[in-house]
């Protein structure tokens, strides 16, 4: 197989899930308290799709990965210093809000426009990857709308595995209800895959990859197109975090069964 792929990964940034997130009301709608102070990470769902894309490109010489990312430029820059050591890609940056309180349709429109503007893009070689969900709000609709705007009819969501046959057809493992997978076959490109977790571990940091990526990352950030959202037709009735009650104890010498039993007892109390 000597197929050459053009893989475009849509991956936004989200506040680091380890931080304490607190929704607040702002003049422009809901926001996260101190959002610009919180460290950000590449959306974990989309990160998996980036690693899968890089792995695919690695095994198909001549293939290339673009990372299309929408977020506040300063935060994008910060996140790229972690991500850029992981896998090779070329960044396409969009400077806009990244808090998760944006309309999925508007985000999709911006992403699709940015993808269409990538020089030399050939739809017959195009695979669009992204996260099936998002850690910021999880509308689960953005990637589907990106595909629609790009005119890609073959779409797969909740993907855990992609195999490419010798004839160039795709075999895709999708999550479905009941904890099961569905195997789909797709004759060829273009296709859009919204990834679940995939099967690949987070790649190790590689300084050489970082050096190469930075030749495109900084220029991409410097010319990042500012985007603004109208927010028409979108209203939030209520934004809140679930209440939590903590009682932390770190144990390492118990079986998962015993831990589960203890948690059940605790919940019952």
């Amino acid at each position, binding site marked *: 197989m000597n197929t050459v792929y053009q893989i475009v990964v849509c991956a936004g940034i989200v506040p*680091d899930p*380890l*931080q*304490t997130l607190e929704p607040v009301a702002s003049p422009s709608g809901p926001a996260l308290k*101190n959002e*610009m*102070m*919180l*460290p950000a990470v590449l959306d974990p769902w989309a990160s998996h799709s980036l690693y899968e894309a890089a792995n695919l490109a690695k095994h198909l010489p001549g293939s290339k990965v673009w990372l299309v990312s929408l977020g506040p430029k*300063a935060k994008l*820059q*910060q996140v790229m*210093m*972690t991500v850029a*050591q992981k896998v090779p890609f070329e960044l396409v940056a969009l400077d806009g809000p990244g808090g998760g309180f944006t309309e999925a349709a508007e985000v999709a429109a911006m992403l699709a426009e940015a993808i269409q503007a990538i020089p030399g893009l050939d739809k017959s070689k195009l695979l669009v990857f992204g996260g099936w969900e998002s850690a910021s709000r999880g509308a689960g609709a953005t990637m589907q709308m990106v595909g629609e705007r790009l005119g890609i009819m073959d779409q797969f969501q909740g993907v855990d595995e992609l195999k490419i046959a010798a004839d160039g057809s795709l075999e895709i493992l999708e999550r479905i209800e009941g904890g099961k997978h569905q195997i789909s076959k797709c004759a060829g490109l273009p296709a859009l895959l919204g990834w679940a977790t995939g099967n690949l*571990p987070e790649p*190790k*940091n*590689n*300084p*050489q990859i*970082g*050096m190469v990526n*930075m030749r495109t990352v*900084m*220029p991409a950030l*410097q010319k990042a197109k500012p985007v603004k959202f109208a927010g028409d037709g979108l209203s939030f009735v209520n934004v809140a975090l679930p209440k939590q*009650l*903590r009682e*932390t*104890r*770190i144990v*390492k010498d118990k079986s998962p069964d015993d831990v589960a039993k203890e948690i059940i007892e605790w919940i019952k109390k």
Partner: protein
Amino acid sequence: MDDGVQTQIERQRMDADIVCVGFGPATAGFLATLSKQLVNADGTPAIESAVMPGLPPQVLCYERSDDIGFGVSGVVTKARALRATFPDLDQAQIPMATPVGEEKVLYLLDPHGASRRSAALRLADAFIRAFQWMLPFEQHGLKLPWTPPFLHKHGGMVLSLGQFMQWAGAQVQATGTVQIWPGTPVAKILIEDANPNMAQASSPASSAGVSPGVSIGSGALPQPAAGTDCATLTSRSKVVGVRLLDQGVDKKGNPLEGFTPGMDIRAALTVVGDGPIGPIGQQLEAHFDMPHDHHKRDWAVGMKFVVDLPENTALKPGTVLHTFGYPEPEIFGFLYVHPERVASLGIFVPSWFDSPVRTAYRYLQHWMLHPYLWRYLQGGKLRSWGAKTLGESGRRGEPHLVGDGYARIGEGSGSTNVLTGSGVDEAWATGTQLAEAVLELLKVKKSFTKENLEATYVKRRRASWVEREARVAEKSRDGFQQGVVRGLMGMALAGLTKGKLTLGGEPVQPWKRIPSPEEYYRGKIPVAEIQKLRKECTIKGVSLHGVLMDRLGWPAIPFDGQLLVSHQDALLMGGKVQAPPGYADHVVFLYPELCQKCGTKICIEACSGQAIAPGENGVPNFDREKCVHCGACLWNCSQPLPYDSERGNIAFRAGTGGLHSAEN
């Protein structure tokens, strides 16, 4: 994995012009100054790279923590050096920054009678209580009516160092001329010797088979070969770069599936700014030794909370409180108020606090609960938490600042001023001084030899306010070696006489000061009872300090789940402590037999993250997942190495993870 095996591994190599170790205030100052002058306004290189001709110099910085700004420190600073770098600095652009407002120094009395106070202090306490009606005394706290000018920070800033470092990192990287890579610890310094045989002579366990004439600094602090004159042999050793940490290994560093050997980064100049307990700084000191009469014996661990103050707080942004006297006379405290009802607060536990159960966390909670402070904190909520070591030897702890191919900046280079309690400003200044020197050398195409770096960087540093003030401060805290009262008097004397008069003698190694719990509590807790408690704690796998403090009358902490939380919850809710898989333990007990004979196990008692616990056969267990990388175990160890009395039996090596909060 032993060093012999490690050196046989084939490693990738990458060449840069300058490689920096650690992204703290010093490196930020260095990069902020350097990055602005590498490229002309039209985008062409102002200076050409030696490794990539036609491009500007390739400048790389490797930071061990998961992101820049994940360190810890509440800071009040005069910000002189910072303003010199950014003359148009707008504080509003730095989250949590605010101008210094009211400054107070408070002497806190003990409301519980549980602290250990000298006769002089007890007398002073009785006097204060008797005459409280005529003193600025309230809620068991005395506001000092006068404080010496050298302690003031008027005109300065209250900062969150985490937020400041994120801001500084963004400024630096926006220039596009330097790269800062977080989550990438530097494991070793690469040293090339003029005499190819020297590597083996100076570091037998770490050098064989690398490449001709190249040795690697070893985190294991190998014993020099008998009869070897290291000073002579290493006099022309040259630093040629760094080695990054191996990935995909087990606890001991043995390769696992996915093993990725740490890459060698070669550079003409290695800038070492990895802080007071940084492994690269330690390796340089082990290889090149310290200058005559210099040593690092004064330390402290600083532990802090970042707190959302109650809505009705009376504390105004910019308020700066410093305390002493409680929870133990040797423990100092601070509370700095940021904008929007946020405060950084915490304590410093110094190495000259002779208690063998010097737990910072429990003491921090008692400090917060002091009536003077609790009235401001009650109803507050924990946002962030962390701990770090402070190198408090100041100029006396200054290592060789430069050598062929390397320069040292920041706290690890002895820049902290121990009299004024200022470190960030000084560290930043040393970074800018080095940057100016490097630019000077690059422009005239001079190499980074020891002589050239001395004629540029060291010369600038010696002529600066950093040096001038460091000389005043150099012996100012020696009095603390003989008690708090003498220490405070010594500080005042040194400050007011510009360092001409001081009290006290040469500091001793911390291990010489550490008594066993049985000795420390003699007359208060029977030996048999301590031994029984120790046995019970060992079986439970917990430290001893909690039960001993309970026994001495310290009240229980009334956990509220918001601000007064368990130590483990502070790690999770506050520090968000992380330990990425696939890395070796960075805390290593070098000689188990020394641990087995150790009576104090102070590493367990002092551990800021409860990451060190009693282990089998008397050797403590280290749990990387709880470590906040404060490094207190390194200098608290009570067991000196048989061949080096300045070092203890714990190696603190390069490691990933730790604190994962940018609000500290």
